[in-house]
């Protein structure tokens, strides 16, 4: 699943090698975990802001948690086509994405405003902050060292 994500970047880096000397000495590294695309991160960021406003929930005091979850959603959107909850382990990810229970916003969130990812927090939650917005810059900064 993750390999197909790497395919475009793999091809891109190969095309940049001109001399045969480079090809033998430098080999592109295939990383186990890909960074989600900027487009998906932006889509999930906008979704998170909009859904927080709509549901009357707030982001975590620690925006790093929010950033990581948004990136996780973006990563699943890239690989599975649907933003599957990043804070769960699944036996069969594509099947779960198709089924939809854990697609963000998941059923527990929609029914009971329960988000165990700590992305959408009700105002009475100890970890809830005052904000319902997060910028792309904040996301980038918080996840820069990951």
């Amino acid at each position, binding site marked *: 699943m993750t390999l197909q994500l790497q395919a475009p970047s793999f091809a891109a880096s190969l095309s940049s090698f001109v001399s045969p000397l480079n090809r033998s000495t430098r080999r592109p590294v295939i990383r186990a975990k890909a960074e989600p695309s900027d487009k998906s991160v932006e889509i999930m960021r906008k979704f998170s802001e909009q859904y927080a406003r709509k549901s009357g929930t707030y982001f975590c005091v620690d925006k*790093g948690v929010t*950033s990581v979850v948004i990136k996780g959603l973006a990563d699943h959107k890239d690989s599975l086509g649907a933003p599957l909850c990043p804070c769960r382990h699944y*036996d069969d990810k594509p099947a779960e994405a198709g089924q939809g229970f854990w697609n963000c916003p998941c059923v527990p969130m929609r029914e009971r405003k329960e988000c165990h990812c700590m992305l959408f927090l009700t105002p009475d939650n100890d970890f809830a902050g005052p904000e319902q917005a997060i910028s792309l810059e904040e996301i980038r900064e*918080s996840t820069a060292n990951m």
Partner: protein
Amino acid sequence: MALFQTQTPPPIYNHGFSFKTHSYSPVALPYHLPPPSLPLSVSSMKTHHQSSLFSPSTVKRKLLCSPPHGKHVREDYLVKKVSAQEVQELVKGDRDVPIIVDFFATWCGPCILMAQELEMLAVEYESNVRIIKVDTDDEYEFARDMQVRGLPTLLFISPDSSKDAIRTEGLIPLQMMRDIIENEM
């Protein structure tokens, strides 16, 4: 097997850790801390004050306090990421301390907070508790066999093999972890 299920932290939870808005790595202490042998070299510098290699400022420096021993400087993280096989070997082998296994995923927000808490716990308990973490994206089959669902999931394994393991799901307070370790031991 006792099962603690917490979705949101209880109101009595005391925020024991500080929220860092920018970096998530535990405090990475610099590697260039002066070695403990510095006081000796300073005193030896004083005897060779005529040597042109040493500037006057270094010769006359007084050591005000001894540098830290750097107990936790050598490694970046105290909680090590291990493979499924290593976990099984640890559990099957002789256990004299409780083992805490943290199942996490890269893009799981609460797992990062849990990792910070576990680092603090590792500093507190040092060698009295063995804390390890397993990446559920890497060790897919192991996580499936252990029926890990929500993340983070903690597995507290007692050194006493007759006792059942305790499993918690979600972010739990540091005090709850301490209570489990104390009651287990």
